[in-house]
């Protein structure tokens, strides 16, 4: 069955309620600051941010599927494209691109040039091990897990660490077979 053309990220973004990105950015900053105060170790903060992202991803995928008309992706390549072109646009208003595929088509990089989370942010020397945007990788992992894909998401490049873009590597570990009762409504 041919997939129905999904709505473009731009169209969805234009139709949903929006808030000022600065409120979002500063609130995220306040969260990171609280975590650093509470947990003290940057590794623990990385872990907690990833967990929070995962929690968000698990819930966010419902809204994503409901608003985007995206049908089941035929392969992981399509999945990655949908995340970059529709997902990022729809929630954060930015476009990402997908590159660096491996031969098997199970690992790729999502490149972000624009990232609303890091406005006004400068990583101090004491926080060099911090993956400031680690919440994003958690979101992707959580959302994909809800559509039966176990993934591993890691940061390869980070503008806060002096790189020229943000690069998230998404690696498909395995597709979890669906179990009865099937929730397929095609």
């Amino acid at each position, binding site marked *: 069955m041919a997939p129905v053309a999904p709505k473009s990220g731009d169209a969805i973004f234009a139709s949903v309620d929006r808030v000022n*990105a600065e409120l979002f950015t500063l609130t995220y900053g306040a969260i990171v600051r609280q975590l650093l105060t509470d947990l003290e170790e940057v590794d623990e903060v990385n872990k907690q941010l990833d967990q929070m992202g995962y929690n968000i991803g698990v819930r966010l995928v419902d809204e994503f599927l409901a608003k985007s008309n995206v049908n089941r992706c035929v392969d992981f390549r399509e999945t990655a494209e949908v995340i970059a072109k529709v997902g990022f646009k729809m929630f954060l208003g930015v476009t990402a691109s997908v590159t660096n595929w491996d031969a098997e088509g199970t690992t790729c990089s999502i490149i972000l040039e624009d990232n609303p989370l890091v406005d006004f942010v*400068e990583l101090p020397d004491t926080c060099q091990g911090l993956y400031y945007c680690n919440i994003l990788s958690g979101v992707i992992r959580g959302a994909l897990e809800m559509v039966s894909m176990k993934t591993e998401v890691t940061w390869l490049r980070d503008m806060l660490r002096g790189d020229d873009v943000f690069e998230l590597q998404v690696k498909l570990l395995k597709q979890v077979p669906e179990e009865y009762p099937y929730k397929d409504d095609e």
Partner: protein
Amino acid sequence: MIGVGKIKPYTNVLDRPLSKGKQEVSLSAFAFLFSELVQYNQTQVDNIAELERRLEDAGYAVGARVLELLCHREKGNRRETRLLGILSFIHSTVWKVLFGKVADSLEKGTEHEDEYMISEKELLVNRFISIPKDMGAFNCGAFVAGIVKGVLDNAGFPAVVTAHFVPVDGQQRPRTTILIKFAEEVLQREARLG
């Protein structure tokens, strides 16, 4: 220590031009994030008062930065020094930038000289929140109260700021009132300035 020693134009946030602040993200993205903030803080506390204090603390960090940002961008590097000036700055400028609209109302308390109230029919942070019965008077507006406190404190107007639900006749949901109680020194200074 990745990136240390590289000199690139974006490494220093102060060298970049100030953004115009017109960028937006989806409301859901903010709502998801805020809900995680509340849930995380719930795991760190034993009681409601402590939870509100922590949310206020998070808001305070936002308020302090918003004041600096908006004074540069909207006010030509000038900061309000009078009580009514800073209140209307919060009620109009800050609210407009953060929540896309001016606050519903700004009133002076009738019983106490040092009290002011900013009311909002449907506060953004309370929009997707319903308070369970066993959490009593807990109000996520504490985060916004923290923002207001952050702005006031850093502008030189120390105050105690709290958020309260106020039932409205004929409305299902109560409105949120941010109560501002200024420190004595602020009122004395105002009186001196005449």
